[in-house]
């Protein structure tokens, strides 16, 4: 990928962010946009792990929650500076990912999926039960907003200007990463772990690193979430939310950095549109996941492009080689 194409994408991204600011006047839409941004951070991280390294985390909501609760508790209860609390959230989540990742990633197969599944459930229980810290099921309130150089980011509109540049930065970092020495190592081990090892790639260590890296994205997203809402409750960090994130990765397209943005956007907006079906949300997400995996295994964008190409080939009477 040439620098020029990339540059254009970033210019488009920045222009889009500014354009939205020029058009949108309603706090509801800013809140929705901020959620899309926060979800994008989560989905990019999970996509690095799933799409590139081929490892599945079914507990990413836990790292999201650890970021949110570390930030929330340290600021609301102990009066820490929000930025410092955000940083400490990263430390906590990174350490948790390290502790789970070391044993789980030494083994081949779906051990990470199982370990993160269990971890997610345990963390959710702790959020509910550690009443004196977390406030239990009724949640933790009194979380302050962030401020930037004395300017409080206390409205959705203001926060938009922190979250979306952050999203841009994280997308850029991730795109760089995928195209770097270790990014190639990740993609290589996804295709053949043995071959990657035979070339000197320490695959166990690399999988651990990218798992921690993706947990850090999730933690960052969690802290932003806590400061955006000024209130958090365990119901935001359920197993169901982890599955939603996996669905966003799949819909956006595995191993697609920009697809992550799309997956997050589509599946954040969709429940808002289907508000009548709220009780069936889990069913709808499950159905979407199934349909995409079966009919568009490369995700929404590339999947539709593939179908279009397939039709064109058929019309021209050509053959298809895959």
């Amino acid at each position: 990928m040439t620098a020029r194409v990339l540059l254009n994408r970033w210019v488009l991204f920045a222009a889009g962010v500014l354009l939205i600011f020029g058009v949108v006047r309603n706090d509801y839409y800013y809140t929705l946009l901020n959620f899309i941004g926060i979800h994008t951070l989560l989905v990019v991280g999970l996509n690095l792990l799933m799409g590139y390294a081929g490892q599945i985390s079914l507990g990413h909501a836990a790292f999201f929650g650890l970021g949110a609760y570390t930030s929330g508790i340290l600021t609301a209860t102990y009066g820490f500076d929000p930025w410092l609390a955000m940083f400490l959230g990263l430390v906590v989540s990174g350490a948790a990912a390290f502790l789970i990742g070391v044993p789980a990633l030494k083994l081949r197969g779906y051990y990470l999926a199982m370990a993160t599944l269990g971890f997610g459930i345990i963390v959710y229980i702790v959020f509910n039960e550690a009443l004196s810290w977390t406030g239990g099921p009724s949640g933790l309130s009194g979380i302050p907003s962030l401020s930037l150089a004395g300017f409080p980011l206390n409205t959705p509109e203001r926060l938009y200007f922190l979250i979306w540049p952050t999203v841009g930065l994280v997308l850029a970092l991730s795109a760089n990463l995928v195209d770097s020495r270790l990014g190639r190592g990740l993609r290589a081990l996804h295709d053949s772990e043995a071959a990657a090892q035979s070339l000197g790639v320490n695959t166990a260590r690399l999988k651990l690193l990218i798992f921690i890296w993706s947990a850090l994205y999730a933690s960052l997203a969690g802290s932003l979430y806590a400061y955006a809402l000024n209130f958090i409750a365990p119901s935001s960090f359920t197993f169901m939310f982890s599955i939603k994130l996996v669905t966003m990765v799949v819909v956006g397209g595995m191993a697609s950095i920009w697809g992550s943005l799309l997956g997050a956007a589509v599946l954040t907006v969709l429940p808002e549109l289907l508000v009548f079906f709220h009780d069936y949300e889990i069913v709808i997400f499950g159905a979407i996941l199934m349909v995409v995996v079966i009919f568009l295994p490369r995700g929404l964008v590339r999947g539709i492009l593939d179908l279009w190409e397939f039709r064109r080939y058929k019309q021209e009477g050509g053959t298809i080689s895959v």
Partner: protein
Amino acid sequence: MHRVTFGVPPGIIKAVIGPNGAGKTTLFNLITGFLKPDHGQIIYQGEEIQGQASYAVAERGIARTFQLVQLFDHMTVLENVMVGRHRLSRAGLLSGALRLPRTQKEEAAIRRKAEETLEFVGLADRAQQPAAILPLGLKRLLEIARALATEPELLLLDEPASGLDAIETERLGEMILNLKNKGLTILLVEHDMSLTMEVAEEIAVLNYGRLIAEGAPREVQKNPEVIAAYLGTDWQA
């Protein structure tokens, strides 16, 4: 494997032959750390390397190819070779994500070296194609290129000629000799006898996990035990 004592003098081409199931690939897997020996030693450049992780063995300068080609199918031909530069470059996660000037310089060097390697094996015009779409003969070449990109001192080739036609096999033989002249030590498992006899300076014969003969191609050819175990019918054909 039973009591196989086996040496590879530096700078030569040595072939390991034997009937199917003789333990040739097992030998490779033991050397490259994909299998751990129950007992015994593997000594490389004076140090014991048995039981080490395969990436650590690779870092010491031992590269290999696989009997069943194992390419990175979703990456381009060039990227496959670039992965081979892994052990010779340093960029970590953070410097890769930040694309620091020093990382960019390293990337440029990785790319240049990988292109040179593709040039050497004659795959330069395929650089931007996905590895998955190459025909088998070129896949084998790409695997060798990828292994060469690690700048190994010892190269293990596991049946590099299988699936190649006569012309491709001949070119492969030339390349192997060429590599030897560049100072590489090559250990070769091969079923193609004419190729083996052409390039190998020493041959070891395995049968049921035992070493039954070892020496120059001419001597091995005459060894009655070898003829009985292996060459008997095949060799004449």
